[in-house]
């Protein structure tokens, strides 16, 4: 018996009452909306624009790198393009990507709340993000920035002739957008959980947003003040990191990486949350080791604050500091590995099906495992000295940020698209795009591991001819990857017009977000839902899923 026929009070409102998409049809109604779902859409649009700006910059670079000599662009332009790519992708795509779109959209729905705790602050944070983006775009249009996304002193404060101030101001402003979002999410999770939604019943995506928000609140201000000091030194002439006055450029690096290493966890933790939701749904199994998944998320966020020094092994910092940072960097791999093992164990004896979100999620596990284990190479000091500042590092963090976060972003996009728009996309095209993305990604970045190991440094416009074969592979892969990124916008927008109606719960998932209509009504639920269950009751405890069945055993609001 599947036990799925238990009757519960309907949470779904009558469809005639309209939904959040039809609540106002003017552009003004979108730009002034404090509805978390609409703000999520605003973010989705703005980060998509930034994503394609950052992608265009790297497309030019990959084209240029087909040949060992610089042919099409000058060295200066090359520096400005990789800086643009880094700044835009990190701060205007990856950091806000999953938290501000899917987090904003789903967090209140998943905990049964009508909205986030501070809806006006939520809208304000989007405007801050846009303001920061405009500063950065101004820096680009005015002539570009050539410091790299890391803004290292003394180059950024004394020697660079590019528009460092505008770019730093842009990132500074966007940082406060991050802080506002973090405050909002944590307050929402603490104060607005519906009746019965105890902490250990929270969906793991919500837990991942909680851990992410902690990092956003505690790390981002340090970046903000560091950029402020850069502006003070460059613009006002106040020496702080300038060695001529006794200042210490390494102090800048410490402050920068105190933010920017935890920032990696801002990018990957929400991705882990997404993948957990998708894996459990398409394996039809309860998440293996729910408690440890929670502890692992919080542990990664916490330990992640104490590993920044592994970016500075060759900087001349104390070898004792390096030793401690190396050890802690190995330690942070433990909770990450726990998550990988638990995803795998969730799949074990599951009734697995391979819809598009699942393909992205499975791709995530593989790519994250490669990205994570090459992170251990870099955490080990002797290996790091060999591959430091080479393409090995580039490949490593792209496996985490693109193979990991971007794959998870697309998993989330496909998994919750029916909820967000009420429409189903074309499954065949979606699977094709997912597979193409996986191959395109590996084709692009795996050769870079080899390149880096052989000694090709990053950020160089020209390279010795013997490396050309790997660069050609990488650039070819990048064009495959670009095609895979261009496909989803086409068939997803197509589905908004011509797609079939999705129904409330097309995947047979258990979470509260699937217990309201698709798209959800303005205030999410007509009656506040009451939670009776663990989040992932896909099958009765002690018995596996029924093969082939797509109905959940109990949704979260159904009593056992």
């Amino acid at each position, binding site marked *: 018996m599947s036990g799925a026929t238990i009757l519960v009070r309907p949470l779904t409102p009558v469809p005639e009452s309209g939904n959040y998409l039809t609540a106002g049809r003017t552009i003004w109604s979108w730009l002034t909306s*404090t509805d978390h779902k609409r703000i999520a859409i605003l973010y989705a649009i703005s980060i998509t624009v930034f994503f394609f700006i950052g992608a265009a910059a790297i497309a030019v670079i990959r084209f240029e790198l087909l040949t060992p000599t610089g042919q099409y662009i000058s060295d200066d332009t090359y520096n400005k393009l990789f800086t643009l790519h880094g700044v835009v992708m990190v701060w205007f795509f990856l950091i806000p990507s999953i938290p501000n779109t899917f987090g904003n959209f789903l967090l*209140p729905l998943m905990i049964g*709340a*009508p*909205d*986030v*705790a*501070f*809806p006006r602050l939520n809208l304000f944070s989007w405007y801050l993000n846009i303001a920061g983006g405009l500063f950065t775009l101004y820096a680009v249009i005015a002539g570009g920035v050539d410091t790299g996304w890391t803004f290292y002193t003394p180059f950024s404060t004394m020697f660079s002739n590019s528009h460092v101030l505008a770019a730093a101001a842009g990132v500074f402003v966007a940082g406060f957008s991050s*802080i506002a979002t*973090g*405050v*909002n999410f*944590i*307050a929402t999770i*603490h*104060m*607005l959980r519906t009746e019965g939604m105890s902490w250990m019943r929270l969906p793991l995506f919500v837990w991942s947003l909680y851990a992410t928000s902690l990092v956003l*609140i*505690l*790390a*981002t*201000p*340090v970046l*903000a*003040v*560091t950029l*402020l*000091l850069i502006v*003070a*030194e460059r613009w*006002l*002439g*106040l*020496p*702080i990191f300038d060695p001529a*006055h*006794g*200042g*210490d450029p390494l*102090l800048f690096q410490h*402050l920068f990486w105190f933010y920017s290493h935890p920032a990696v966890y801002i990018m990957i933790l929400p991705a882990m949350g997404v993948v957990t939701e998708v894996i459990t749904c398409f394996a039809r199994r309860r998440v293996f080791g729910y408690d440890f998944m929670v502890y692992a998320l919080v542990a990664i966020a916490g330990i992640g604050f104490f590993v920044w020094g592994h970016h500075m092994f060759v900087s001349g910092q104390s070898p004792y500091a390096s030793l401690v940072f190396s050890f802690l960097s190995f330690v942070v791999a433990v909770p990450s590995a726990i998550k990988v093992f638990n995803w795998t164990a969730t799949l074990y004896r599951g009734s697995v099906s391979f819809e598009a979100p699942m393909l992205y999620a499975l791709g995530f596990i593989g790519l994250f495992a490669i990205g994570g284990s090459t992170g251990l190479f870099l955490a080990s000091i002797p290996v790091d000295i060999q591959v430091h500042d080479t393409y090995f590092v580039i490949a490593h963090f792209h496996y985490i940020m693109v193979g990991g976060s971007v794959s998870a972003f697309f998993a989330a996009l496909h998994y919750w698209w029916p909820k967000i728009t009420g429409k189903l996309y074309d499954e065949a095209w979606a699977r094709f795009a997912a597979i193409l993305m996986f191959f395109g990604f590996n084709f692009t970045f795996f050769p870079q591991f080899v390149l880096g190991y052989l000694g090709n440094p990053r950020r160089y416009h020209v390279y010795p001819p013997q490396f050309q074969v790997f660069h050609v592979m990488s650039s070819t892969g990048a064009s495959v990857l670009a095609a895979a990124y261009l496909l989803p916008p086409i068939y997803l927008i197509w589905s908004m017009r011509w797609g079939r109606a999705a129904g409330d719960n097309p995947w047979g998932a258990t979470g509260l977000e699937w217990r309201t209509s698709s798209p959800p009504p303005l*205030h999410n639920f007509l009656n506040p839902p009451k939670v009776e269950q663990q989040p992932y009751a896909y099958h009765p405890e002690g018995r596996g899923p029924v093969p082939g069945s797509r109905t959940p055993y109990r949704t979260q609001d159904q009593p056992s």
Partner: protein
Amino acid sequence: MSEAAGALREPWHSLSRQREAAAFGIWLFLASELLFFGGMLLCYAVCRYSHPQGFLEAARQTNIVFGTVNTLTLLTSSFCMAIASESGKSGLRRLAIGGLAGTLMLGFVFLVIKGLEYRDDISQHLVPGAGFALPQLGAQLFFSLYWMMTGVHALHLTVGMIIIARLVLVGIRRELPLTSPEIQVTALYWHLVDIIWIILYPLLYLGGRA
């Protein structure tokens, strides 16, 4: 109860819950602010460790009279703010508005004194750059941090004053429900600005004077 209804906002169903959330939210923001100033305090610690003599020599040049009077001013303003916050909770409208107005006034006094002090500093060539008064290595670092820390602090104070001025204005026009969490939240922020100053005062004014 009409006042209570006026203070209630989406998505809350009860005012006490809303107040709890507002206080919780501002505490989170204050944690973030502490790390913001923490970055500069770390710079101070590192630079002072590298250049103890230059730092003490530079600290002797700050104007301790202005600094001390400003410390007293700011502490008194926090006292006024606490009165405003508590009387707001108890529904004492006049006292609440009086407390807010007192805070605002003392904040203004602080900024005026700070301005006089800045003028003094500039006339004594204590702005880093060409023509800086002190030859010791590290003295310029001290004054870079002095200008940045007091400047960012003054900026925070100004933001607080704008918020308080608005509260006073809508309070006089009776548009501000006393039960609104806005007063308490503003008070928490104001106290943080005060606490930051209590840390800055010994670091910037008392060094080298023992």
